[in-house]
Structure formats: C-alpha cells, structure tokens
C-alpha cells in the first residue's frame, strides 16, 4: 500500500487501517471517566475517547491541556469492551509512547490539546498503535497519512457545539479529492505542490477518489441531525466530543446520535432519534471566537 511509507511494516499498517475500518458507521464518544464510558458503550458507541476535560471545558477554563491521567484511562479500559482511544498533544511523541505502553487501542494526535511542537507532528510509523489526526483540507490529511495516520477526521471546531466548521472541512476535503479525479497525470505534480502533499498519495487519491484511510468527522457535532449531515457529506463515522456529556440528556442523546449515524439516509429514523431529546449543549458562533482561541488552526 502506497501510504504505508518508508519506515512502517506493511502488515502493521494493514491492521492499523483495519481497526479504523471496523469503526466505520459508528460513533466515537469523548469521555472523562469510567462512568461516562459505560454510558457511551450502553448507548452503542463503537469506541470511546479518553480525555481529561471535554473540549468545551478546555475552551472555557484555558490553561495547558495534556494527555489524560493514566489512572483514568486505565479505569476506562477496565470498564468497557469497545476500543479505547486517548489524545496526545501534537508532536508529543513521549505522551504517545506512554499510551502505547498502556496499550490503548488508538491514539489521537489532537489539536484539542495544547500543542507540544509547533513545527512537527509525530512520526506515526514508529508506533504499533494506530493514530488518528485532524485535517481541514486534503493537503493536511495527506501529510498526516504520509506520517502514518491510519484514520483522518475533520478538525471542525471542537467544543463549539457548532457544526459549521466540520461541514466546511468535510466539503473541502471531498471537493479537493473530486477535483483530483478529473485531472491529467501531468497536472498532478502541480497539485501536489499546491496542496503540500506527497505525489504518490495525490496520485492514489486521483485514481480512487477516496483517502487511502477511513475519513471520519469531528468538531462541533451536537445533535442526531448534525451526525446525519456530516455522514451525508462523506464522513464514514462520527466523533462526538462535548455534544453528549454537555447536553441535558447524555444517555438519550448518545443513543439518538448512534441511531442517526447509522440511518443517516433515513429521515424518519432521524426524526425518531430527535423525538425524546432535551436541550443540546450551548453553541458558539464561530465568528465570535477570537482567532487566537480557535483550536483548528493548531497543527498544519
């Protein structure tokens, strides 16, 4: 596989992307303790993401956001049978080594935490645990894949409760891929230069019209209809962060988002998912957020 890169083992790469394949069509929920993880699993989450604070609290409280406490991650791993993911700071390869030693199932090198390196992302081929990374456009997605990410998710704007950025990023990635499929071979080098992405991956996308790894959506999804929307735009699965446990009705909402993610083309099912819902999390107008407070501009 072309995306496997020079330093990764081919079969390691296959089982990394293979786990991402298994998560398709599902919902991955942010949780901060074992109790929430249990609620997520019962509601039908296909995986949980362990973190110290959900993005909306990180946004509110500020300070440095780091990898979650090992004790909490362990408790979550002991509580649920579904895959457990955890976040590391961008470029923090030592945090990632800790999570690998802990044997979490997936590592998210995430812009939601405070970056540890403003120049370089982790060289993910060095790890046996698969990584997911955020992206706002195709160039960013392919750079992360070249570094060894086995799954891409849109960045969206985490903790905003506003789906507009996730929509923007998914539409951007999908339309940039569609454009590649219409280009001649001799036009692809220029496109690789402009997107800042490796030519072999550009050529692969031009041929298939898809990313070489699963393409999920995250960042601002707060309702079942939000989940259905990003699925309709091309997301193969959905991450929900603050949207579940910052709502008035986590159990009901978690289940409703799972239902809408599967039946994303069935308006009647999405209606049913909305029937019992209480208040969604409070949302933010992205235009009211200071440039310096945006999470999506972290990483490149």
């Amino acid at each position, binding site marked *: 596989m072309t995306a496997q890169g020079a330093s990764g083992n081919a079969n390691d790469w296959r089982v990394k992307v*293979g786990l991402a394949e*298994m998560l*398709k*069509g599902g919902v991955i929920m942010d949780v901060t303790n074992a109790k929430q993880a249990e609620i997520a699993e019962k509601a*039908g*989450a296909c995986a949980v993401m362990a973190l110290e604070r959900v993005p909306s609290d990180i946004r509110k409280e500020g300070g440095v956001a780091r990898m979650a406490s090992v004790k909490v991650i362990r408790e979550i791993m002991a509580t649920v049978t579904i895959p457990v993911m955890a976040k590391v700071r961008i470029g923090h390869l030592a945090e990632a080594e800790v999570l690998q030693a802990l044997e979490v199932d997936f590592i998210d090198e995430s812009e939601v935490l405070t970056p540890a390196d403003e120049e370089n992302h982790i060289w993910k081929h060095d790890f046996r*645990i698969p990584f997911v990374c955020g992206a706002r456009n195709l160039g960013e997605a392919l750079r992360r894949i070249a570094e060894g990410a086995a799954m891409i998710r849109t960045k969206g704007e985490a903790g905003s409760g506003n789906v507009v950025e996730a929509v923007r990023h998914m539409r951007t990635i999908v339309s940039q891929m569609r454009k590649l499929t219409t280009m001649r071979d001799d036009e692809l080098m220029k496109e690789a230069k402009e997107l800042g992405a490796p030519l072999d991956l550009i050529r692969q996308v031009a041929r298939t019209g898809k990313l070489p790894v699963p393409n999920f959506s995250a960042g601002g999804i707060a309702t079942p209809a939000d989940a259905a929307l990003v699925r309709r735009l091309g997301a193969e699965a959905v991450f929900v962060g603050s949207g579940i446990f910052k709502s008035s009705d986590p159990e009901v909402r978690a289940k409703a988002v799972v239902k809408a993610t599967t039946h994303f083309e069935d308006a009647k099912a999405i209606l049913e998912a909305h029937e019992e819902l209480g208040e969604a999390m409070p949302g933010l107008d992205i235009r009211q957020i200071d440039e310096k407070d945006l999470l999506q501009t972290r990483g490149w």
Partner: protein
Amino acid sequence: MKIGILAVQGDFEAHAAMLARLGVATALVRTPADLDGCDGLILPGGESTTQLQFLEEEGLAERIRRFAAEGGALFGTCAGTILLAREVQNPAQSSLGLLDATVLRNAYGRQIASAVVSGACQGKSGPLEMVFIRGPVIERVGAGVEVLAEYAGKPVLARQGRILAATFHPELTADTTVHELFLQLAASREPAAAAAANQ
C-alpha cells in the same frame, strides 16, 4: 443471486468491495425489509455491542433468525461470529444463537495484539492469509460444526450447515477463497425454499 450485508456499523464496505470483485449483487441491510430477496447475509466486523443494539431494538434479530430458518446462508466475520454464536463470554452478552459454538470476545488482547498471520485452510492448497483485529476466539464447537481452519490450536473458520463463521477478516485481504465458499453455501439453497421465503 443477491447477498445482503448488515450495514448498521462496521466494515460492511470492505465486504461489498469483495463481492463486487466477484461479480455478485449486494444490498446493504439496515432494516428488516432490506433482507427481502437476499440469498445470503454477511455479518461484518465492527463492534458487536453496537451491532447487537440495532439487531435487538429494530427487529433485525428476529428477521435474521427467520431468514436462517428459511434456508438463507449466513457469514460472520469477527464481530459477526460473536453475533452468530450460541454462547458469548468475556463478558457474556446475548446473540443470535444460530451457530453451536462458544466465543470469547477480545480473547487475543487489545489492538496491539492484532496481526496478519497465515495458516492452512480446507479447500485451499496454499496458506490462507488471516487478518486478526481485536479478534474473538472460538473456544468450543458443537458436534454439527465443521472446523475449516485453525490458528494457534483454536478454530478460526467454521461451518454449520449454511452458516460460515470466521474470527479473522477475509474481506481485508485480496484472497477470495472464503467469500467464494460462502457464495457456494448461498447458492446451495433449495430453489423452492427461496421462492417461498421471498413471497
């Protein structure tokens, strides 16, 4: 012939791509009605807890049991095998109970233990590549179950009548052996039974 693929969650697209390569018509199954007119149903990999919730709450479990009783062929991979088994442990969870076997979930360990291996498989002369991802272990099979492949002393591919179950992911390889075997099972259904079931 038409093969349904349970598409509530998991790697259903990988199975669809494999069947497309074999030139077989497929239908994604998300509701009980989606299974009408199918000769076989694939239960893909994914998270069995998630899939089970859809099966139990949306009438799919009952529809799949009826499909099996009418002679429809079933093929589970990984999570699909967990759903098919009569008994599930580690921890215990409910299932369709159609395959006389006991299955232990996540029995090889977490993702770090996932691996690509190869081993002998009945009906194939060379070794079969097997991709295990957080796979279950078939701990026990009943007398009516034929073991077609083993790995590390445990059955990894088993057949009971028109039910086929793998704990690995043939859909993530280029080898079509196991899917072709399943298509033979689906094709072996009595035409009269198929016609009656589809009325």
